[in-house]
Structures are given as structure tokens and as C-alpha cells.
């Protein structure tokens, strides 16, 4: 019975990453109990808001089996532009709209390049990444955007029940997104990622869905840029550089497969918490945070390899069961196996 429960837990990808977060935090808590103080946990959570939004956005692209490495630059560009607007006294709503507009345009360029010019997603997003990053330099002239009004910076400190307003927004987006992914239109993302030919044949609008995935990813990146401005308080021309890789790593940690069709948004948010807390955990374990990259890389590789091996194991097992079911000799075990299969399914 226990083994069946264990399997179920592994099958639910979001749950397994939740357990991983809990085990990781408990282990750190064993070494340094200060880490498990509520205030510290909340601080860790709130610090991960930018990555949470980036991961939620890029999840949509990853579900369809594509990849988007331009979100770091989009975040930087929207942060630079909106910060300049806010500094110059324009209304915040206007800055927000401009940021969203930037996101939509970048997403459309990525999506249309992919669908209409047949450019692989990694290449088109690589191209937009360097172009948009260059635009940040052109726009800011290579200077920092500073002297933002205190009121806007204070926005990132507004809290309800210990969780910042920004994180509530991220949580609401996560819930809304999860709900959306369970509607027929949302299921299309998974269908395309799982089997694009099959999805085309049963009449799923592949082009529209993929383009909207890229638009969603870029829009969330530019909204994350707004939050970045408020949290950090200034924007450098390299703001958000390399964030795309961290967001992808967060999604992978949260159980989203890069080959598409598997995963959920809860996992993406949990992964972003892991990614953002590694540096903090190291400090609490009295290591230098210089080991950040080493630990992140190790975690990523270990989790992914274990996950791949487990998956192969289950695939092998089902294949063996099927073979047994086909052979006459296996007919005796067959009935037993199919029964246990049904139990598994339930």
C-alpha cells in the first residue's frame, strides 16, 4: 500500500517539488533553527516574487514544448522604460500600460517569427534577447535609472498578513492561471506540447495558442520588470541579465518538462522559491553565497536526472506489463496486473 502512495506522490509533479521545498527547509532548519522563523520564511518568500512571475510566464511557453530565452532582456527593457516614466512624474498606470505594451510586442515578435517564418524558438528568442538588451543600452544611454519617487519604492513594502502585495498578486495570477489551464483553451497548451501533430489533426489552433504563450511569457516578464523597479529602487542596463536561465531552472525544479506537455504553475512557483532561496540558505548554513551557482547547478542536475530515471522506470514497467498482457503465458498475471493498474489509476 505504501509503495502505491509513494508512486502517486511522484506522479503529481507539483506535490513532489512541494515535499522537496519542505525537506530542504527542514534540513536547513536542523542546522540553523533561525532559518525556520516565520519572519525569515516570509522574507525568503517575498524575495522570490520576480522569479515567481517570470516562471509563471515562461511556463506557458514550456508547456507548448518551446523555449523563451528573451524574458531577461524584456524584464530589463520594461524596467528601464517604466522606471524612466515614473521618475519623470508620469502616472503609474501609464507606466504599467507601456510595460505591458512592450511585453505584447516582444511576445508577438517571438511568436510570429516562430510560427510564420519557421525559425526555431531558441533562435528567435536568442535574437530578440540580444536586440532588446541592446535597446536597453540605447534607451538608457548606458546610464543607471535612479532617483525614483519614494512612494513607488514603498509599494514593494506594502504587506497583508506578512506577505507583500506583489506576492499576493503573483499568487492570484498563479491561481487564475491554474484555473485557466483547466479550461478547454488552457488544455490546448498541454495538448500541443504533448503531441503537436495530433493537436493539429484534431483542430486545435496551434499557431494562435503558441503565439499567445509567447505573449503571456513576455507580458509577465515586463510586469515582473515593474516589480523589480519597485523592489530594487534603480535600474542598471544589465538588469535581468541571466534571469531567463534562472526562470527556466526554476520551472525544471518545479517539475515542468522542457519537452512540453507536463507540469503546472504551482510547481513553477515552488521552483522559483527554491531558486531564490539557495543564496539565503547558504548564508544560514554559514557558507559563503559564492557557492550559489555550484549548489544550484548540483540541485538542478540531481533532480532532473532522478526524475528522468524514475520516468524511464515507470515507462519500462508499463511496457513490460503490456508485453505480459499480450503473451499467452502472461495471461494469468495479466488479470492481476490490470487490476493493480486500475488501482494505480484510481
Amino acid at each position, binding site marked *: 500500500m505504501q509503495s502505491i502512495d509513494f508512486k502517486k506522490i511522484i506522479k503529481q509533479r507539483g506535490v513532489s517539488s512541494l515535499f522537496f521545498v519542505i525537506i530542504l527547509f527542514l534540513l536547513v532548519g536542523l542546522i540553523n533553527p533561525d532559518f525556520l522563523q516565520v519572519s525569515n520564511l516570509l522574507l525568503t518568500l517575498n524575495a522570490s516574487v520576480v522569479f515567481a512571475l517570470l516562471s509563471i510566464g515562461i511556463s506557458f511557453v514550456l508547456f507548448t514544448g518551446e*523555449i523563451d530565452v528573451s524574458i531577461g532582456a524584456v524584464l530589463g527593457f520594461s524596467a528601464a522604460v517604466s522606471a524612466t516614466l515614473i521618475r519623470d512624474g508620469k502616472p503609474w498606470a501609464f507606466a504599467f500600460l507601456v510595460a505591458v505594451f512592450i511585453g505584447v510586442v516582444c511576445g508577438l515578435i517571438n511568436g510570429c*517569427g516562430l510560427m510564420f*517564418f*519557421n*525559425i*526555431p524558438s*531558441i*533562435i*528567435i528568442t*536568442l*535574437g*530578440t*534577447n*540580444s*536586440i532588446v*538588451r*541592446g*535597446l536597453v*543600452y*540605447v534607451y538608457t544611454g*548606458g546610464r543607471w535609472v535612479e532617483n525614483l519617487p519614494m512612494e513607488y519604492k514603498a509599494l514593494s513594502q506594502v504587506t497583508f498578513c506578512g506577505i507583500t502585495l506583489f506576492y499576493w498578486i503573483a499568487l492570484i495570477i498563479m491561481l487564475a492561471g491554474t484555473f485557466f489551464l483547466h479550461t478547454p483553451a488552457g488544455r490546448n497548451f498541454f495538448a500541443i506540447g504533448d503531441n503537436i501533430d495530433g493537436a493539429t489533426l484534431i483542430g486545435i489552433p496551434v499557431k494562435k495558442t503558441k503565439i499567445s504563450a509567447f505573449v503571456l511569457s513576455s507580458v509577465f516578464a515586463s510586469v515582473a520588470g515593474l516589480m523589480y523597479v519597485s523592489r530594487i529602487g534603480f535600474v542598471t*542596463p544589465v538588469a535581468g541579465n541571466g534571469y531567463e*536561465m534562472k526562470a*527556466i*531552472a526554476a520551472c*525544471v525544479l518545479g517539475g515542468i*518538462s*522542457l*519537452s512540453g506537455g507536463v507540469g503546472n504553475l504551482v510547481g513553477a512557483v515552488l521552483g522559483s522559491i527554491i531558486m531564490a532561496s539557495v543564496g539565503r540558505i547558504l548564508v544560514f548554513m554559514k557558507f*559563503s553565497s*559564492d*557557492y*550559489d*551557482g*555550484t*549548489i*544550484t*547547478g*548540483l540541485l*538542478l*542536475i540531481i533532480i*532532473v*536526472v532522478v526524475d*528522468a*530515471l524514475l520516468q*524511464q522506470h515507470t515507462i519500462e514497467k508499463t511496457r513490460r506489463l503490456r508485453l505480459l498482457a499480450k503473451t499467452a503465458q502472461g495471461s494469468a498475471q495479466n488479470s492481476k496486473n490490470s487490476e493493480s493498474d486500475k488501482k494505480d489509476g484510481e
Partner: protein
Amino acid sequence: MINVSMVKKKIGWELFLIALLLLEVVVFGFANPRFLRPQVLFGSINDFISICVISLFVTMVIITGGMDIQAGSIVGLSSIIVGVMWKQAGMNIWVACVFAVLGGMLCGLLSGFFIAYAKVQPMVVTLGGSFLYSGLAISITRIAKVELYKGISGFPESFIQFSNIRFFGIFPSQILIFIIMILIAFIILHCTKFGRYIYLCGINQNAAEYSGINTRFIIMLTYALSGIGAAIAGIILTSYLGTAKADFGKELTMPIVTAVVLGGTAITGGKGSIVGTALSSLVIGLMRFGLSMAGMKTQYLDIPVGIILIIAVGLRGLNELGLLSRFSLKSLRKNS
């Protein structure tokens, strides 16, 4: 017939790259006559030799249908290995270089092992690898008690000379290194059985496996080769700059992939050539160099490179679509 047309198409793309290269020389020559001085023109390779060397070997990885975004971080790791082995461990500098190459190979082998034998997506493993190896480089720097931003310097004269010598006062030795690397990569990919197997793995791994080729081993070896290439680039960079630092090569990932793809390698695998990659890395390098000589700020240089990448690949995508439709029309006519 098919073979001839395929060869024509391949040469066509390489001719296009050569034309682009000549066009660059002419345009930048007009913009700034100093660009045409042989010393400046040939000396420019010092700026982008790492991209050239690494992209040659990453081409092989991408031909197998894989992806390698960790090569940039191996550059920093190998650089710091050279420094620490020489200064802290007191080894001969050339022995230290051998250790750096071995280190790069091990990194490649490790990632390649997980990709080939555990069947994890290459992008994910090399993403983890890029965090891990650059993190390791920083950790080694800390353990060796070297200041991160200063790095290790004061290398012996012979080591510095190795990449700063100029033949006939014009050709820097890095051109010779680049040519040797092209020859090695060309022979591996185009003149050996191993090279043919690399293509076959990219075209259809299952078919290759069924015809008795150890595809997993071959895929693992391509990652090891790209690790070696990155380590060599790290050594050249260390020698040229006279400093060993952990953050060398941090920004190289995107230019490398750009060079490989612009060189005509299909990101889905099974197609590509060393000559194409070599030419395209020169095109990208010269463009960056020429634009900065023409007065463009270094930070803006990514824009034209990105635009060229998208246009080149987009045009090729459209072209392939056109060819495909013509091909299907022909086959339809034949059938009827």
C-alpha cells in the same frame, strides 16, 4: 542528383557567408580605413578567438540534435585551473594547461553522460552544468584564497608569448591556432567514421542504434569534445590577457549558439559543417570589431548580430518551406 543538389545548396550557403565577410571588409574599410591595415584586420581575431574555437566543437553537439550552453562557463573554469595549478600547486605552466584541458573534458563527459545515458534533455543538463561549472570556478578561486576580481596573474613569459607572438609582424599566432583547430574539427567531423556517426545520431538516433552504432557513447563524446574546445579557449584567453579569472566566458553562450546556427547548422540536428561555422564565427567577430571601429558603442553591438541571426535563419526557413512545397509537387506529378 540529390547528392549534387545537396552539395550545391551547402556550398551556396558558405559562398553567401564568404560574400558577407568580403562585404564587411569593404564596408568597414570605407567607414574607417584603419580597419584595412593588415595588423589591425588580422589582429582583430584576438577579440573573438574563444567564440571561433568553441563554436567549432559545439557544432558537433548540435549536429547530434543536442544543445550546449555550458561551454562558456567551462572557459572560466579552465582559466582558473591553469592559474591555481601554476601558482598554488607550483606546477609547470604547460602541465597546468594539460590539467585544464582534462578538467574541461571531464565537465563535458559528466554532462554528456547524463544526457546520453539518463536521457535528460540536453538543454536542462547543460543549463545545470553552466551554473555548476561557473560556480565551481568561483569556489576554486575562494578555496585557493585568490581575490575574485583580481584573478591570478604574473605568468611566465613563454606562456604569455604563446598567444601574443606575431608571425612576420602581421599574423598573430591565434590565427595559426584557429586554423589548426579548424583542421582538427574538420577531420573529426568530415573525414572519420566517428564524424559520420555524429550526423547519423542527429538524423535518426534509433536507426543509428539499430544499425549497431553505440549512439550514447558518441553523443557523450561530442560533449567531451566541446568541453575540450572550451578549455583550450580558456587557456588562450588566459595567455592573451595574462590573467586567470573565474568569470571569463560568462557572456559567450549566446554568441556561440549564434555562430553555429548562422553557419548553417540545423538546431534540430543532422545538418551542418565545420567550414560554415568557422566562416560565420568570423563574420560575427569581424562585424562586432568593425562596428566598434566605426564608432558604435560596445553595448549596442548585440543588436545587429541579433538582427542578422533572425534574418538569416528566417530566410533559410522560408527557403526550405519553398523547396519542400516544390518537392511535394514534383512527387505528386510523378505519382499521377
